[in-house]
């Protein structure tokens, strides 16, 4: 029983960052119709930016993490402006191919800059775990979980309550109608891509200090983000949130009770079952965001 609770707790904490990754990807897909293969690279970018600010420059931990997120937003905006905008209106596969190019380019540029050796990021939290009843948890993991959920909550509010968020939802529902109502589609695309990339960078900056940082770390993260997106239903914000949590819990339970060799495959097995029984995603009756 205690081990079960421990696995659940670990799963939920890990799931918070999966949710961040999944939300970014689902927004980019839903609003822009872009299958973003470079999503994992923004996760890696966030982790390496955190490494740069914290391990090399030695700035304050919280400032460093925030700066890493800002870096993700900026590079995301640049990528949208110079790579995706010229291809607006092109076939979805063509756009996917250019994102594959961006993925290869970013990953190998990271390899050139930082080298292939896994690096660790210093953090100010005590390595001694907090013990609550039968549960052990490191304080940095609690920090990661709290920040992840604040970011998810803030994103939810931004999409639901702000004017820009309303324009994003309108674009998602019907881009032509939204454009006719005076929504600047170019601007929405830039904002959406920068926003989604920022969330991925946040996941990388948060997990970086827990795990190691290396150039190919984004590949598995991207595949997991894809499974989160499909579990939640494409373009479904809440679906991605719960999908992320579920994937975290399922992986944690699977690694604990089945086999750690198959841990990273559990998400994919879940996808196949989801598609068998709930093809529109676990939460996707209607495809919508918010």
């Amino acid at each position: 029983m205690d081990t079960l609770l421990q696995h659940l707790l670990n799963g939920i904490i890990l799931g918070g960052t999966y949710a961040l990754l999944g939300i970014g990807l689902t927004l980019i897909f839903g609003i822009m119709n872009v299958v973003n293969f470079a999503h994992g690279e923004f996760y890696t970018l966030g982790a390496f930016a955190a490494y740069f600010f914290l391990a090399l420059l030695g700035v304050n931990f919280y400032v460093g993490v925030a700066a890493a997120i800002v870096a993700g937003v900026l590079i995301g905006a640049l990528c949208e402006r110079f790579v995706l905008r010229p291809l607006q209106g092109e076939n979805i596969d063509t756009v996917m191919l250019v994102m594959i190019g961006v993925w290869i380019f970013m990953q190998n540029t990271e390899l050139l800059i930082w080298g292939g050796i896994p690096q660790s990021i210093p953090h100010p939290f005590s390595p001694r775990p907090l013990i609550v009843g039968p549960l052990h948890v490191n304080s940095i993991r609690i920090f990661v979980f709290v920040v992840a959920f604040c970011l998810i909550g803030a994103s939810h509010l931004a999409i639901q309550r702000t004017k820009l968020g309303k324009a994003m939802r309108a674009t998602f529902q019907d881009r032509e109608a939204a454009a006719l109502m005076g929504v600047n589609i170019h601007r929405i695309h830039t904002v959406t891509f920068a926003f989604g990339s920022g969330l991925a960078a946040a996941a990388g900056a948060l997990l970086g200090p827990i795990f190691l940082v290396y150039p190919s770390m984004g590949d598995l993260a991207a595949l997991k983000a894809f499974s989160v997106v499909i579990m939640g239903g494409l373009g479904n914000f809440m679906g991605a949130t719960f999908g992320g949590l579920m994937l975290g819990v399922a992986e944690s339970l699977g690694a604990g009770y089945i086999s750690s060799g198959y841990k990273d495959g559990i998400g994919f097995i879940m996808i196949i079952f989801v598609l068998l029984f709930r093809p529109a995603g676990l939460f996707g009756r209607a495809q919508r965001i918010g």
Partner: protein
Amino acid sequence: MLAAALVGVPVWLTNQYLVHLLILAGLFTILAVSLNLLLGYTGQLSLGHAAFFGIGAYTSALLDVHLGLSFWVGLPAAAVAAGLSGLLIGRLAFKLRGAYFVLVTISFAEVVRLVSLNWMELTQGPLGLPGIRPPSIRLGTMASIPFHGKGAYYWLVLALAALSYGIASRVVRSRIGRAFVALRENEALAESVGVDAFRTLVLATVLAAAMAGAAGSCYAHYVSFVGPEVFLFSYTITMVIMVIAGGKGTLLGPVAGAVIFTAVPEVLREAQQFQMTVYGAILILLVIFMPRGIVPYLKERRAGAP
């Protein structure tokens, strides 16, 4: 002229490394042509194509290593095994449209890779299966002669690549091929004139998977080793790059793509550590300037010129 030059390669090309590259280009041609049937003609993207390739490679390898069956049994068996997995995936995925097929195929490839990595008794996990025998030819009553050197493999791959191209061009021009395109362009309209969308899409998947499986069998016997890395996502990505950059939905596009994108990384070896960064940059620029692919771009230019 071109055909004669291609057939004669082992005679006039003495550089074994280049022959090796041509064999790889031939294998990738089979894979790209098969992926193009799905992606180019039906418009459905399979991102697990390496799974069909790998299943073919493992089928052939296991039959050889465990049962001692030769390549000539392994090749059709590989095509059948891959085709059956294509049937399974198609039936599962085409209940829905859009990105679902993509995601099911990705998941499938990842699950198969993990099985190959973890099912030690069957596949020897990460150690892989070494010592796969080369194909041999029995001439009349003489003892069988195993393939020796790269020339024989080159002819084998060339023949299979030509066969795949032939099958693809026959299929594309047939009633089924027109159904593929009709489904890609407008599914509701296609169904209204009697195209069974589900069956047609499943058929396309089975065909593409079987062709990829045959390529896998060839690969296994050529390198005489199969490991879990045949399922790697990067192989699928390479195939997708070849099809889309070459020109999806054209017959020559994937062939051009396969040859060019086998050569590009080799040429870029000159750039050493910048190799893959430059590769990524080339890909980005290629898509921005030729969004429909190389072959359609050249065709448009030729049509445009007086």
